[in-house]
């Protein structure tokens, strides 16, 4: 069992933005979802864990590796797919993975060859192994990205918003692959797509403005909201009024009319009906504590 411990990690950028604010987490084997709106500090956290960024204070350890002070050791155990994954021009998928495998210490060329083939097959690109990666579609590139993240025997796999730009089929394949490898290692998946987390993760955390606003089991979080979320369709004109009078969690358009979710311990009446909360409600209730219109 691997264990990632993050203690009071903080980071403030030179422009004053607090990217990480006293973040503490404990993560064990399995898929761990990191949910948060854009700019919440997810990528900062991931980059810090991937040794690509310094923290101002706090510690982070993977098993007995001090991530901040032993970056090289951590890198030996890391599989990383960043938010933006590009490729070199004029290089084939096979060459690229081969290069990455060498960098990850797979020096035995027979092992390397087999591994590259295996991974290419896994990500369904075996047929395209001799094509220039630069010409791949977004989804194909992303698959190359996941293939490279799986090279070696990583204990910690970090994938930052991996499904952006993938079609539903590709997305499914991607998650299947991820959950398959995620059985024995820690996989941290950052995303702002709530469904991804629900489908895949047993543990999750929600980040907002550099802080962890929630961590735990997604189902538990939903259960907590049970019987406290109400919805109602309102007119556009009324929206402002409702926003001031109720603790709005979210609003979205349904059939051209705003549908608002509000949080309330008691039934607010006034045409609201009780709904079964979902993870989205959890997400919004955690990050929208000021109950502003979003």
């Amino acid at each position: 069992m691997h264990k990632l411990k993050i203690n009071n990690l903080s980071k403030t950028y030179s422009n004053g933005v607090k990217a990480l604010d006293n973040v503490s987490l404990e993560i064990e084997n399995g898929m761990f979802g990191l949910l948060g709106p854009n700019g919440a500090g997810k990528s900062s956290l991931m980059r810090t864990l991937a040794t690509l960024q310094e923290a101002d204070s706090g510690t982070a350890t993977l098993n007995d590796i001090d991530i901040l002070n032993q970056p090289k050791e951590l890198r030996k155990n890391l599989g990383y797919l960043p938010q933006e994954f590009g490729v070199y021009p004029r290089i084939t998928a096979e060459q690229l993975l081969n290069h990455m495998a060498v960098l990850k210490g797979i020096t035995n060329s027979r092992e390397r060859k087999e591994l590259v083939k295996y991974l290419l097959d896994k990500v369904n690109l075996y047929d395209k192994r001799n094509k220039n990666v630069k010409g791949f579609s977004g989804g194909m590139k992303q698959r190359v990205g996941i293939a490279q993240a799986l090279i070696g025997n990583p204990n910690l796999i970090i994938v930052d918003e991996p499904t952006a730009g993938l079609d539903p089929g590709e997305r499914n394949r991607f998650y299947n692959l991820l959950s398959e490898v995620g059985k024995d290692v820690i996989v941290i998946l950052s995303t702002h797509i709530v469904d991804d987390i629900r489908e895949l993760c047993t543990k999750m955390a929600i980040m907002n403005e550099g802080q962890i606003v929630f961590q735990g089991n997604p189902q538990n979080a939903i259960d907590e909201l049970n019987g406290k979320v109400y919805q109602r369709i309102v007119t556009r004109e009324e929206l402002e009024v409702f926003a001031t009078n109720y603790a709005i969690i979210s609003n979205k358009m349904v059939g051209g009319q705003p549908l608002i979710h509000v949080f309330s311990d008691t039934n607010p009446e006034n045409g609201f009906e009780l709904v079964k909360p979902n993870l989205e409600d959890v997400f919004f209730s955690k990050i929208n504590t000021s109950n502003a219109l979003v």
Partner: protein
Amino acid sequence: MVYIFLGLMTLFTFGATVSDNIQIGGSVGNVYKNAPYIITIYTTIMTLFGLLIAAAFYNNAALRDYNNNFNEILFSTPLSKPGYFFGRFFAALVLATIPMLGVFLGVIIGSSLAPIFGWVDADRFGSFYLETFVNNYFLFILPNMFFAGTIIFAMANKWKSTVISFVGTLVIIIGYIISGNLISDIDSETIAALTDTFGIRAYALYTKYYTPIEKNTLSPGFSGLLILNRIVWIATGVIILLSSYFSFSFQEKNKKIKAVKEDKKELKQLFTRPELSPKYTRKTEWKQFKSFFLINFLSIVKSVTFKLLFLFSAIILISNLVGGFEYFGLQSYPLTYKLIDTISNAAGIFVIIILVFFSGELIWRDRESKINEVIDATPHTSLISLSAKALSLVCVTVVLHAFFIFCGVIYQLANGFTRIELDVYIIDFIVTSFMTYIVWSGVMIMIQVIINNKYIGYFVSIMVIFAWGLMLSIFDIESNMLFIGGRPSLMYSDMNAFGPSLKGLLWFNTYWILFSFICLLIAGALWNRGAVSSLKERIKIAKKQIPKSYRLIIIGTISCWIAVAGFVYYNTQVLNTYETSENIEQLSADYEKKYKKYENVVFPKITNLKYFIDLFPYKRDVVVKATMTLVNKAETTLDSIHYTINSNWGTEIKIPNAELVLDDNDLDYRIYKLSKPLEPGEKIDIEINTKYISKGFENGAGNTHIINNGTFLNNFEIQPALGYQSRIELSDKNTRKKYDLKPKDRMPKLESDCSENCMKNYLSEGASDFINVETIISTAGDQIAIAPGSLLKKWAENGRNYYHYKVDHPSQNFYSFMSAKYEVKSRKWQGVDIEVYYDAKHPQNVEMMLDAVERSLAYYTKNFGPYMHKQCRIIEFPRYATFAQAFPGTMPYSEAFGFVINLEDEEENNVVDAVIAHEVAHQWWAHQVIGANMQGATMMSESFSEYSSLMTMKSISKTPMKMREFVKYNHDRYLSGRGSEIDKELPLYKVENQSYIHYGKGSVVLYALQDYIGEEKVNTAMKSFLEAYKYQKPPYPTSLDFMKQLEPQVPDSLKYVINDWFKEITLYDNKMKKASYKKLENGNYQVIMEIESKKLLADSLGNETPMKLNDWIDLGVFSDSDEEHLIFEKRVKIDKSEMKFTFEINEVPAKLAIDPRHLLIDRIYEDNIKTAKELLPEN
């Protein structure tokens, strides 16, 4: 941005105007620092740099809307195509010319500030002419920016890529370079001038014969070749612009979509994840290094930019080779060292571009491909990836260079030259260019890593390349330890291989390579891994994260570097010192200020001399003992002897009963006081021991006279000089002014009846007259040592060879001592041993050289008098210098010409023969009779020798036109030489050792003279002059003494030429205005020539006054357009500036000419000849 560029241009020109250290074109002597000519040179050169500005503006104009993705919005508006297209173009054109105005601003500000602040004297500035600025703008700035713009704009519009615009800029530069390669001879100058897109060479040709006064007053005009060139390129530009306009469209081209090829379906294989065993050992690092290297190397090699650069450099190399290795109309053999020079020239600029451009590309590649985070998060050391980048950079340049060498070898083979020295190619590459590439790769990678911004990184790299060296030279620093990649220059010689600089070169290489490693190590430590952070943060991270082993490597490398630096410093600054150019000036000025007072101190003259010389060529040491007898030939008693020492030599002077009373080691001046003064006529025996011991290595190339194979010393180098030496004084009047010295005369004035001032000749300057000299010289066992005179005895002792030479007739104390592994070929001619000492690699021309010597001896003995030595030797010496020189009976001749020129197809006269004939002629002119040390002296040695040489050529020339081919080089030498005169031009009989006058004009005038009065007459005058003065005791003759011998030989009708050609500066401006002919009824042809003729008198600066014409000039008819057959010639009296002549001839004329054989000095000779038009009979 416009203002930044404007500021830079202003700054550059300002710097050049107010400082002598920054040179762009440059003004010297009488040419003002703000002369129209200088301003034009600045403008033309700056338009070359302006190209980069143009590239930026035009690229921006063409691509801005695309790059900002604004095009689709903009082009859907009702915008007219011509309005958009030309609007953008001309806006960019105007913008691009604005920075160039900085050139004018810089000159104007510089000229007004420099005198005020005392940076430059006010008298070095003249007045400004509005015309200069206007004409420069319309002749150079506007057309150049326009033409460059059309290409860049067209290419940018077509391909919509900044890189392609950059390529467009390169295309223009390459065109310029190739056009320059076309100049291989005088004959191709016009083509080169027309094909130059910038007009720089057209202007150079336009002003080729400009005198200082013309440079100071004439602005470039809209005329001649210059305007032709401009019209050609503006027209080309218009065509390019129009064709670009018509192919331009607002609509996006349909992007090509490649048909998707069906992938071959392969049988589904079953893959299993292998058991992995990741290892992180040294071996892993090595494999990572290899993988990184391969990825980077391939990325450069496959990139379009590299392919283009490769192509361009190959084009430049090939265009260089096509012209071959020209030398005065002859071709040199394609020797390996020549190809090496060509290759390093062709490679130079491209390698710099490659290093700058790809260092940025490689460093930024990961980030630009957005793969950086993935790569950075893998367990590799940053140094591994950076050094792989550096290596791939170096390897790319190696590939390029290897290709060049391949081209070189192919070129040699294609020319039937089989002595291909691959080892020389390779060693030269490894110790020079390869080292440069390594050093710069490291430095540039460090710059990119530290700056952490690609484009600022590029800018800094370029500044480091150019500005750093410039800055050092401003501060008068010459140590190669400070010039990045600095090292002594290396010159391969067939005789002496890589020569004396190799040792120092290797040490400097070690020093710089370690420096480059340090740069890489620093870059590796500060490499921005992961999120972008400031340099400060990276230093903090580095301090925290860098492992101990890495620190040890850095410390180790730095310690090695410091140790090597110490050793290099010790060798180049302590063991072997050197003087910087400003130091040398200072020393000269101090010498003059302190010891000028001794200028007239009389010293005894050397009468007998015996040299004992031991050469140790492999240790590069020389030990000399000279015993001599000095006689007081003055009429006063002498109580002291003064010496000026050669500071590189250890010097011990033994004068009996004398005391060293002054020993100035800084200025190398010594005074020995005699305890018993020397009475008139009294003798004294002196022994002087000097030695040159080579130690370690030097900052520069080192002594190229004392070398392993091909040592070449003369007596002035190995002996201290008697008395104060005025030749050490600064000569340039502007430099002298800087050190508060008054302008000095180059030579004493010519005097008619001189006794006192004619006691010294210009060669020995009073130290001796004609004396007896003997030499015992020894050298290594495998070499031959040669000194002037007959070889009396030769023996071997202790494995060394000894030779005893004695000059047969008292001669000048002008002596050469040489030693090398020679082959000898000899021939006997009337009791004289003609010998050629040559290197085993150069036997080709030896037989011809023997012929040339024999032919010269025959002509000179017949026409001038007997040859006074028993041997006549030509001796090859290495190519560190390119000249031939005449010592008594002995003529050293550089391997760089003569020995390596292909004469296989030369049947008639050629320059190799001419040089030999010239040097042999010196055995009469300089060694038998020599002029007094005053104006006109070199006419009797150099002009006479050049004339004698021309006469031997003439004696074997089959047609008179062949000689015109030959004399044209002398005309050119004179006319272009007078344009660069820094003081004043003088008439021939007052020449002050000015080579363009005594070689160029002297030979032209004497050649014309023998044509006008007859060869016999000229020879008679020279012979009687020789007989009157040969081997005479002082007083020495002057040019006036020769004129006295010449005058009786000139008929009264031609007396004017003595005055015009010898005593004044006279130029002719002849022109064939109209050339026609008609067929006569008797079958003959009548030719009609309408000519225009002017005779101009020039003063020392080039101001011309028209003179009354009453001269004899030839008119001639050529039967062919190649001007090879002169079928008719008549000398006519021209007494009006426009005249018409008709002659009857019996062949069809092709061209009519005034002065058809180019005897007279005429700045524009081409218009002397015109194709004859047939006049059809009127019906």
